[in-house]
């Protein structure tokens, strides 16, 4: 049980999820947030894999409720760093859906497919805050005009996060839907829908809208290429590692 509770802390289930989000709020540095988001679910998966007994089915509705709760929170939060944390909380909780049916290596990858874009979003909050004072949606809309590279990177990472094809999250969620019973699968689909809605709101707040005159410069071409390179590798890895999974 202790292992299960430990796993529920790292693959966060409400209210244990408060810890992850409190840490993310406390850690201001984007890099620290990035590392935390990458490492945190892997600890959870390690703990989960150490649990000797079959995982009780009751964890599935708990995980789905947690995921739905954080998905709805995404609709209201405007700080990009916190958005990444809430998104991670919502996505990591879904790992439990997979865990009740399999103890395979797939768990570790499932968590990875969502933690990488969440970590990249947390990282991107740095250059945004540097230029705009804060990575806060709706304060300085219309970034597509003056900061096209930054806006492009942000859009693509958000797409990757909310599991749009061809990013690995999409295939991971399809795999999860195969594993779940129909009611749970419907719940996951609803959560997925809310992610899409939240993503649209986030992008609306940063990228579209009236352009404000700004003297700040865009991110360097090399930085943009680095982000896209990571995303490309991420996508390729997803296609390679999950190609046979479906």
């Amino acid at each position, binding site marked *: 049980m202790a292992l299960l509770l430990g796993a529920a802390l790292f693959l966060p289930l409400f209210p244990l999820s408060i810890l992850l989000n409190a840490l993310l709020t406390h850690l201001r540095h984007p890099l620290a947030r990035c590392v935390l988001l990458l490492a945190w679910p892997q600890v959870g998966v390690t703990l989960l894999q150490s649990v000797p007994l079959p995982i009780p089915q009751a964890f599935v509705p708990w995980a789905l409720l947690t995921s739905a709760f954080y998905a709805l929170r995404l609709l209201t939060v*405007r*700080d990009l760093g*916190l958005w990444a944390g809430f998104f991670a909380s919502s996505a990591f909780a879904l790992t439990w859906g997979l865990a009740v049916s399999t103890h395979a290596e797939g768990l570790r990858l499932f968590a990875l497919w969502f933690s990488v874009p969440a970590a990249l979003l947390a990282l991107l909050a740095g250059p945004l*805050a540097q230029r*705009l*004072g*804060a990575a*806060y949606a709706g*304060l*300085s809309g219309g970034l597509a005009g003056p900061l096209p590279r930054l806006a492009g990177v942000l859009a693509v990472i958000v797409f990757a996060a909310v599991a749009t094809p061809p990013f690995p999250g999409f295939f991971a969620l399809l795999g999860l839907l195969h594993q779940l019973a129909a009611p749970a699968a419907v719940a996951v689909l609803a959560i997925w829908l809310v992610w899409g809605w939240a993503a649209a709101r986030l992008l609306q707040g940063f990228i579209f809208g009236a352009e404000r*005159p700004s*003297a700040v410069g865009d991110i360097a071409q090399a930085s943009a290429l680095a982000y896209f390179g990571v995303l490309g590798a991420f996508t390729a890895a997803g296609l390679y590692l999950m190609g046979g999974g479906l």
Partner: protein
Amino acid sequence: MSLTLGRRLKIRAMVHVAGEPIPYFWPMRTFIHHNPLHGLEHLPFAQAVAQGERLFRARGYLPRAVRRRYLAQGKVEVAVLARQVEHFVARETPLAALDMQRLFFTLLTEHEEELGAAPALASARDVHAALAGQALPPAEFSSADLAQRIRAEMPAGRPLHALVDQLFGTEIGATLDELVIKSCLDFFDEGQSVWQMPGRERGLFAAWSALARHNLRLFIRGLHIKRILALDDTPEGIISHVMSELGVPEDHWTDYFTCELTRLHGWAGFIRWRAAAKHYHWSRSYPADLVDYLAIRLVLGLALLREHAQRKKTPANLPALQRFVGERPEEAYLRRELHGGHILPELAHAVEDAIAGRRQARLVRLLPEYLARKREREAMLYAGRLQRLAERAGLAHALAGLDADGIASLLVTLDRFHQAEGLMWLSAQEAHYMQQLLGGLNLAPRPAREKRPFAQVLFCIDVRSERIRRHLEKVGDYQTYGIAGFFGVPVGFIGLDKGSETQLCPVVVTPKNLVLELAIARNADDEAFVSVLEQVFHELKASVLSPFITVEAIGLLFGLDMFGKSLAPLTYNRWRSRLHPDKPDSRLLLDKLTREQADSIIRSLQRAMIVRAIGRELGIQREAITDEMIRELREAALGHGEGPTGLARQFGLEGSSEKKFIERLQRVYRVNRGYTQIQLERLGRIGFTLDEQVHFVSQALRSIGLTTDFSRFVLLAGHGSVSENNPYESALDCGACGGNHGIVNARVLAQMANKPAVRERLRAQGIAIADDTWFIPAFHNTTTDELRLHDLDLLPPSHLVYIERLSNGLQAASRLCAAERLPTLGFGEGQSRRADDPASAYRQARRNAMDWSQVRPEWGLSRNAAFVIGRRHATKRLNLEGRVFLHSYDHRCDPKGRLLENILSGPLVVGQWINMEHYFSTVDNDHYGSGSKVYHNIAGRFGVMTGNLSDLRTGLPSQTVLKDGAPYHEPLRLLTLIEAPFEHARQAIEGVANVRSLVYNGWVRVAVVDPDTYVVHVFEEGGWRQHALREAGAAIETEDIPL
């Protein structure tokens, strides 16, 4: 409960006054260029622009960065700019240690960084401390001070929903706009919707309120419209009740109404125009005015405010809002910062979190930290910018030497300078263009000709005519003239198969005379199969269910159409046009009808109606009755006859049946005395008397100075444009013809001028038109540059031998014009076919006109800059790049100045509207223009919206005035150049009140050039200033000689 009549009238008057700043919006079918600030033209230009910025939230001048690009291109008169700065500085409090002239001139011309608005929170002492590198002096902001700051942004007339939105982040204003737009789309639809709104004939408010009472969607949203509508039946009563409910003091109602109406100024402008357009079919059928519209806005607004008050505990009226600000200023201030877009980004989350948590104590704790950080940020930022500016100007030491009071004074001056600099740049750029134009004039007398020109061509004054006139003059012995495109003849026109009248004249004129177009020979069988098929397709597409089947059944046909239009527009459209029958030759019914003719027409119409009535009502066929029976029935219906008619006797009708039939004739078939009188009056409008015809021809010829030396051919070239898939097509047509093609007016004047009786009378007036002179109407297609002659079948045989030469000349000019124009549209860059090859360019221009994906078929009147009233000889040697309206005028033909007054009051005013439309659409395309065409959708067949729901887009699209995001049109006020003695021109200007007002208020710039003395009088800074031209063609001298 109803208001008294006096009260209702008072509210109507308030709404009327409130709507005055809103410009009319004409339906897109007849796009009228107009000044978006027309309602503010009684104010000086700068004041009106400032007022426009407040009312329409729009910018009035180009940003400094763009003006600086013009400066780099040499389009700004630097000396004038420096003088403007000097005048400004002279009016300000001097700062002994600081050379303000140098500082401001550097700010304008050299310094890249924007200073931005003056700090809101940081004081001059703070900026001074920041400049000195010292800690900011302590400062405290009391609750009263915070409340005062918020109240400063709550002027009395500002709508309550806007204030609530600003403090609570609600989106009541946006929701209200959306609901109002939907209601307007329902009511004002002109045939686009398949299902029409019921009860529209009762008027906007009545129809809307009947529906809104039962609108389930509004009810589900929590909007209890019914309760509000129960208060009164009239829109005036509703307005009064809602305003009282909102707690707005009555003294501020007019301002409040103005703010409400300007929120969707496109819709308000359309309704305002529609209410005044008594001849407009849709307006007569479905009446609406601003009172109706405002009542709907207020009802919905109140319902939304109440719903938010219930759900989110926001204030529902003005006193409650003021109480909130007074009682909780800290929260109100932070709310205003967050929702008003002023928040410090790094504290945004903390502030939003505290507000969302409704934790008053936390807000009070957060506020001092917020104020301190914001104040410091503002002071540091502004001080840094000021420091860098001073360093750039070499005045860093002087700036450092200023004390806190000096900085305070500088901040105030800088603020005023920001408000004034737009006009400085504008004046300097205008001065440059004026010098260029004046310097190129040829004021020498025209050399005498040995023989008359081959042809004389009268073009519209439109700037697009300048290019083709120049090329026509180059290719042959052509003499060209400029005249307003309606040729001075205001015409109400009913075309072939048209049931309604089109007014072909400037919108400021109402035509008295009506012209009918009649086909020479028409065969009903000519109604092409394709036309019928098109009608069927249209019906199938428009109905509710049939599109589902239509797409499956005949979708492929539409696909073929799409491929044809996209891949080979020119060939495809040529092929497609062959499917339609040619328009039959026609004549214009131009002469006045005599009383006998009119009586005869009415008699025959009434007889036809009676025959139809007998058939329908009595089932008796025409062959069973005689003309005499019909005559008797007509007399009886008109009240002239008594006793049984022949029809009654023949068919045994009883007295009562006969009486009933005659009553139906009078009532249903309108064979009665009253309607006969109306018909007579209508027929009385048809045509022109001989005196009128002589007057119009004489006036047209005299106004351009063409009274002698007539050529064999005098071409009257009306103009228009042809493009595909372009809601703005009529914006490219002739403004002087009310946004229509000018060919009808050309045909009318030509027909008049070719009449021997007219010529005889003209000869008596001293206008001797040669016997062999023939006036030919022509059409100048400005999209393709084609010049096409009309009514050639009327040409005397003796002239036919010259037609080929004429046609060749016109075509050569068209091709050359296309070659000059196409590169400006971006053709020829990186293409194998050269756009400067006349034949290729001409073909490309025609393709352009047929291309349905083309968002910019032509530049239209973009880049217009000046209006020259004078002899063509004065400008003939100049390449004016299609930027100048050219009105021919010879003051020697107009000793009393009446013709000049006519030119000023008509064509110049239309030119100024066009110029201002382009000006404002360029400086702020989002607000005064209509944004990108790419996102436009047709609304109700009379306007366009951006996306599926927006305000009606007024003004010009970005594709008309911008190129690659930067202005293509150079926004300048219209420079009006009059070639005439100064006193002659001045009297004419003074004689036309609205032109005088435009000149004195700086809406147009005027220069009067005396061709005899070479002296120029320019109206600037409130008075006439005299300049001297050294000699014809030389640059203007710079010294001013004040009068």
